[in-house]
């Protein structure tokens, strides 16, 4: 076992443990923090896979954006320290069962599948990503880029309208 492996396993353990804790802890604030660590763990895995760009985006968007947003909204809606209400055990058991079945099914299928491995491992470069991002040619991603911009615009408008509820629209 070399260092790379150890790092991988540590990251994996971090991700899964924090993920699990995030969905099981009854302190909502802690849940957010666990989520944060789980996401960081995933970012770590990206690093480990040498996808630094994605890792950076992961850190910036998730850790810097979404988790902060979540934490803000927790503050807005929840007295800190109050424990989350318990779920009915029946629901928990049934969910666990369903989830386990799904997991088992997926894993069995994935492990039985023979993936096609004989390719050289190359990592993308920044310029590579940049060029493709704005290319309108075959393999270019200009259209999704435009679409996502429209989506973000729409989401922004939606958020504003909904969040501005208390202040009636001025004619």
């Amino acid at each position, binding site marked *: 076992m070399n260092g790379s492996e150890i790092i991988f396993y540590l990251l994996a353990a971090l991700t899964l443990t924090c993920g699990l804790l995030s969905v099981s802890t009854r302190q909502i604030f802690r849940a957010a923090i666990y989520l944060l660590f789980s996401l960081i763990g995933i970012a770590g895995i990206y690093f480990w896979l040498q996808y630094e760009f994605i890792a950076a985006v992961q850190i910036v968007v998730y850790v810097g954006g979404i988790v902060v947003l979540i934490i803000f909204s927790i503050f807005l809606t929840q007295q800190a320290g109050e424990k989350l209400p318990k779920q009915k055990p029946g*629901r928990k058991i*049934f*969910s666990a069962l*369903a*989830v386990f*079945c*799904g997991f088992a*099914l997926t894993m069995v*299928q994935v492990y039985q599948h023979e993936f096609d491995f004989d390719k050289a491992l190359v990592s993308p470069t920044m310029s590579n990503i940049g060029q493709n991002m704005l290319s309108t040619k075959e393999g270019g991603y200009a259209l999704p880029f435009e679409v996502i911009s429209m989506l973000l615009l729409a989401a922004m408008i939606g958020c504003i309208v909904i969040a501005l509820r208390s202040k009636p629209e001025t004619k």
Partner: protein
Amino acid sequence: MPNATIIALIPLLPLAGFLLLGLFGRKIFKNSSGLIGTALLLTSTVLALYTAYEYFFVYGKVDGVYQQFIPMKLTWLEFSPGVSIDMGMAVDSISVMMLVVVTFVSLMVHIYSLGYMKGEERFSTYYAFLGLFTFSMLGLVLSSNIFQIYIFWELVGVSSFLLIGFYYDKPSAVAASKKAFIVTRFADLGFLVGILILSNSSGTLDFNTMIATLTSPDSDAVKTAATSSFLGASALTWGAALVFIGGAGKSAMFPLHIWLPDAMEGPTPISALIHAATMVVAGVYLVARLFPIYAITVPAVLEIIGWVGAISAIIAAIIACTQTDIKRVLAYSTMSQIGYMMFALGVSKYGGESGLGYTASMFHLFTHAMFKALLFLGAGAVIHYVHSNEMKDMGGLRKYMPITHLTFLIACLAIAGIPPFAGFFSKEEILLAAYQNNTAIYWVALITSGLTAFYMFRLYFSIFWNKSHHTHGESHGEGSFVMMLPLVLLGIGAAAAGFIPFGEFVSSDGNPLESHFHLQFSIAPVALGLAGILAALWLYAKQNDKPAKLAASLGSLYKAAYHKFYIDDIYLFITKRILFNLVGRPAAWFDRNVVDGLINLTGNTTQAVSEGIKKMQSGKVQQYAIYFLSGVIILAALFIYIWR
């Protein structure tokens, strides 16, 4: 050759009367409708008599044999090539004879009704119905096609229904009309199936062709029909027997006779016409029409016919002795006399001397029409006079109603078979035929003839003698001229009709038949008849308690006879209990609750399921997600492991 137009006019004139009076009678011909009807019928009668004269004396006989002519035949409805309902006119000796009988009696009734039904609210309707009946009856006798006869058969039935129920606001009349129709209808079912069988066997509906096919023993039809058997009898036997059931129903043969006494609810002239002289003999006529088939192909059925006739004759005679309603007595008497005609046919054979029964039957039909119509019309006059049907309300009427009395007496003598009145001759021939062919039936008939004399004179004495000092409310005369004229005319007929050499004209195969007169043979029936009269005289000429005592001494026999041997009750039981309560009601219940219930159940189940699964839509978004996830997993598993 017969003149088709003239013969066609005979039934069509009454039909015209029906249409004219039925459509416009109530408004336009309110008062003249009786005269219109009578005039039309008079024309018919004249034409019928003319036709009879022409047939019997001018063209009917070819080579010494009376032929059948079919001057007109129209295809009415074609089923398949060769099998069609035709509207034709068969002119032969029996149909011509019947034409005369029907038109004559009908004319008498028309005339009589001018007085009897005067002042009725539905006077014109009455004449319309009479026209309809006469038309149907004439159509029936002229039929050349078995389906044609069935059609008119039904029409006769419905006009009978209409006329029995003429007093439609009287519940008993309504009930009687229904009963008459339904019972005969039931019999007609047999007739219909019989037609189906016979026509299918012979491949035709035409009488002549059918008879020709079914009487030649080597025809394919007979052979195949003889081999195809059902419940131990050949198809032809079944067919012929079923057709006879139709005739038995119409002719009130035991056990389908129960409608006839009730039918007396109709106006009395109607009883005279329909339920005495004409319609009820249609069954006899039908058997006579198909006689060659019965006699040659299925003699077994003919024997049954003979026995049914004999049993009907004696049972009716016994019952008649106990009834107190004069019209009912006459009704049973009719039944008894038709029984005579029927067994006369039953004991006959086809052709030649052995066909005596056939001739006798027709002869009796003819004379019976005269005297029975007379009896009914006389009874009608009596009823008209005393406003009651019950014997106990009558008595000593001979002084008040001399013409009625005289004609009634003639009729009674005629029916009792006392020479030289008409009944004697015809009955004599019947008994002779029975004697020659079936001794058992002969003895039954003999006893019946004694009983006949007894109950007829019981009736006669009760009406005209018995209580002499009876007050009948305000006394209005015996009846107008129009009521008396038919009595007299019919009285003449009843007295004299016997002298017609009937065998000359009517016989089973058309060959004239010599009438033999056997004095020694006549002794027994005449003596029995006289004995019956004397018994009646002893019992009923004066008011006394002898009848009551006699009745008491006879005990249960009397009671059973008085209750018509409980046959009505058996029918009532079958219809009410079994058909209504055990079939009809369960059917209706089954339909509403089971069949419909199942349909409603599907609806309700759907609703219930819909209500039951409503929890699925619980409003909990996580539960929705669980359904979602389960759906994904299950589908995935199914498609990966089972349906790939």
